[in-house]
């Protein structure tokens, strides 16, 4: 499967999963944002421009499906996708804690960007409430969910090697 198509299908599945399954996994009001995790992973591997574009599209669809102000999630997720592009892709091979930390930071950035835009539109929220009640629980959940989402993402977007006569021989021989 070609990578753009695989990515489109992955993000579509993530949006459905986010809308229908994730609310069942909430702990104390916090729930992971699978779409955000995917955008960050995509930004890591594909760079800022593509990360921002996927962030914008993913956020826009979330705005439309979620009945929120259209453009808010598109904005915050585009920013997060863009910033993720600056992270070295080698982050994954060194230590699992590094990408988890990156997701945690990206998640907090997403919530603060969203809140910042909301603030400009007249919606106020206390900084400590924003950080401790909303951003931090979601960010921790996202960081914990990241390895699982990464495995699914890699499985869906990495092309499988073609079966050569050599591999067939090995299998049957």
């Amino acid at each position: 499967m070609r990578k753009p198509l695989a990515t489109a299908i992955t993000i579509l599945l993530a949006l459905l999963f986010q809308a229908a399954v994730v609310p069942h996994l909430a702990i104390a009001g916090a729930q992971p944002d699978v779409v955000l995790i995917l955008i960050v992973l995509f930004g890591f591997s594909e760079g800022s421009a593509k990360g921002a574009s996927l962030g914008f599209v993913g956020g826009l669809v979330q705005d439309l499906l979620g009945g929120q102000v259209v453009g808010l999630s598109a904005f915050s997720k585009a920013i997060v996708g863009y910033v993720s592009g600056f992270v070295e892709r080698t982050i994954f091979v060194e230590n699992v804690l590094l990408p988890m930390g990156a997701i945690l930071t990206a998640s907090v950035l997403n919530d603060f960007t969203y809140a910042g835009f909301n603030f400009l539109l007249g919606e106020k929220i206390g900084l400590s409430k924003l950080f401790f009640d909303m951003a931090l629980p979601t960010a921790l959940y996202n960081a914990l969910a990241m390895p699982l989402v990464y495995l699914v993402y890699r499985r869906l977007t990495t092309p499988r090697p073609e079966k050569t006569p050599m591999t067939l021989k090995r299998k049957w021989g």
Partner: protein
Amino acid sequence: MSPTEGRRGYPVIAALVVASMVLVTVYYKEGQEGPLHRVQGWSIGLIAPAQSAIARVAQPISEIYGFFVDVGKFRTENAALKRQNTELRSKLRSMSALEAENKRLRSLLVFKQRTEFKGLPAKVIGWQSTSWQSTIIIDLGSNDGVQKGMPVVTGDGLVGQVIQTSANASRILLIIDQKSGVSVQLGGSGDVGVLQGQSDGSLLVSYISKETTVSAGEAVVTSGLGGVFPKGLFVGKTAEPGKVGYNLYKAVKVISPVDFRRLEEVLVVTNPPEKTPFGE
């Protein structure tokens, strides 16, 4: 990715930021009948069947998951319940007369509600997916007579109001959402305040006079002011009042008996009457 590659993304992010701002501006300017609002309305109908199907599959998984999450809570509750059990046994005998009275009053109230409210029972098929908004999607839409602004309740109390409808599904803004505001009245003093959702999912009544004495356990019902919710819909009971400090008004925490995270069936009130009974 190298920093050089990152810099190449400047025009892209600039364009996307501008596009986001244009979208937000259009969304605010266009009104409820604008194209973006209409697409949101259609999207409910589009995603509702998928959500419904996935929710049916996810329900057992969610219950198992919920069991493990709740184990710690159950242990603490179990110890508290054992203590309560001892106390309640001693009170049980004196309660029988009150129980009979309660039964009679309840049957009268149910009868009264049945004659004054007309409701459409609906199934919850979707939940909002971010921590910024608390909404649910139900399986009834404009084809079933559901209209924007209609109140939504359960047998336990007020749930929210319809904010968007499509042909066969509707979106409900829950009262625990931070953007939700409901004019409510306190059962004890009769003071009117505004009930708003908090970021932690709790409910707070603001704009109660500092002089008002509020005790724990007072019934909180809708006041009927504002024209959205009919008067007298039960919302919850007041919690132990906190310190007022230097604020101009008192804020009172309200405990709703509705479990907003596990809503399954709700009732859409289709003919809210002008005057309804006060209290639970």
